[in-house]
């Protein structure tokens, strides 16, 4: 690794640590190259995510590109300490590496109306 690349990684680590990201996310950035990242677009609207069922491969980096079709929603994947506010007119990107297999719930965590509690989805991480 070149000196400039090392400096870049160090700068990224400081930046993400300052943003309060979970340690596993920080470590993921330190280890992975973006070459094998997959991108998954998730659209939020009252009261659903599309897609609401997502399958990922363990240890394969992923970028969630989050948009909303109507109002502000939240995207929260608690088991991976991953969350974002999703504002109309913007695309929120979340990068992470699923390090454990299983089925995990994601949800809207910004109260958005009568069926807010139905606004959930599942991520299945497989070997």
């Amino acid at each position, binding site marked *: 690794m070149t000196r400039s690349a090392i400096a870049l990684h160090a700068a990224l680590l400081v930046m993400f640590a300052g943003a309060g990201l979970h340690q596993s996310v920080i470590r993921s950035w330190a280890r992975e190259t973006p070459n094998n990242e997959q991108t998954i677009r998730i659209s939020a609207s009252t009261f659903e995510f599309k897609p609401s069922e997502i399958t990922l491969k363990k240890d394969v980096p992923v970028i969630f590109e989050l948009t909303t079709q109507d109002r502000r929603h939240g995207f929260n994947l608690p088991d991976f300490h991953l969350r974002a506010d999703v504002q109309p007119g913007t695309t929120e990107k979340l990068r992470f590496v699923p390090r454990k297999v299983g089925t995990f719930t994601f949800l809207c965590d910004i109260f958005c*109306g009568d069926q807010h509690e139905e606004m959930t989805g599942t991520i299945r991480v497989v070997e």
Partner: protein
Amino acid sequence: MIHQMHRRDFLKLAGIGGAVFVSGATLSAGQAQQDMSAFYFVQISDTHWGFSGPAINPDSQGTLKKAIAAVNSLEEQPDFVVFTGDLTQTTDDPAVRRTRLAEFRDIVSDLKVKTVRFMPGEHDASLDRGDAYQTFFGDMHYTFDHKGVHFIALDNVSDPTAAVGEAQLDWLRSDLEHVSSDARIVVLTHRPLFDLAPAWDWATRDGDAVIDTLLQHQNVTVLYGHIHQEHHHMTGHIAHHAAKSLMWALPEPGSAPKKVQIPWDAASPYKGLGFRNVKADTAQARYKIEELSVGNML
């Protein structure tokens, strides 16, 4: 920390049964304060007035009224009643929201006890940041003192992100600066302040900051709602007790892939629905919680 309390320390209640749980922190005899006495109050939560769903609660129009009648029938009346949020079922229509809040206010005005404290839940306040709620019930966070206990009502719902927020945290810290470290403190709130089940939205986004602030005091108990069931948890020396709903019950935290309402059981009507009496022994900084089932009151 669980302690049995001597029966003589409590007020005599009407003979309606329910599970009994005792919790709180203890003080040495030398720390007991002379001007404190035992008293009790009633906590009612998650009444969701305006909900309609015959498979979940075919008596959605009657359960709250039955509970009010039950409280009125208690032989010894409580010092006060507190409603810990989700007074009404949420609606996207602001006019319907106000109608439901008004109907709720009128129903609970039948309580014999005239000291009634209210708090919002996300169903009441998240869609308009508490605008309608405050018209009917006033402030969403406040304090009051009663017979040696400092009560703090915290709002973790009017911000739709389920955060208490920096301004309210500053208010809390400022309030606690004027309260001795061994004061008896009861926090009333709607959502759990700790991460009970984040995947079910059973958490407060900045609850850790609230708990860190409260941990500076020795005798803190938190009473809340939101999860529609009795639940008890400790964070350090702080006890957290969730109350049942009067509209529907929910499964134990994380016990199912998806959080779903428990259907009405015709063989056991009102199963899982109820309210609680909280009996405070302020001298010992201990609380006895008596869970009362709606089904046992009929």
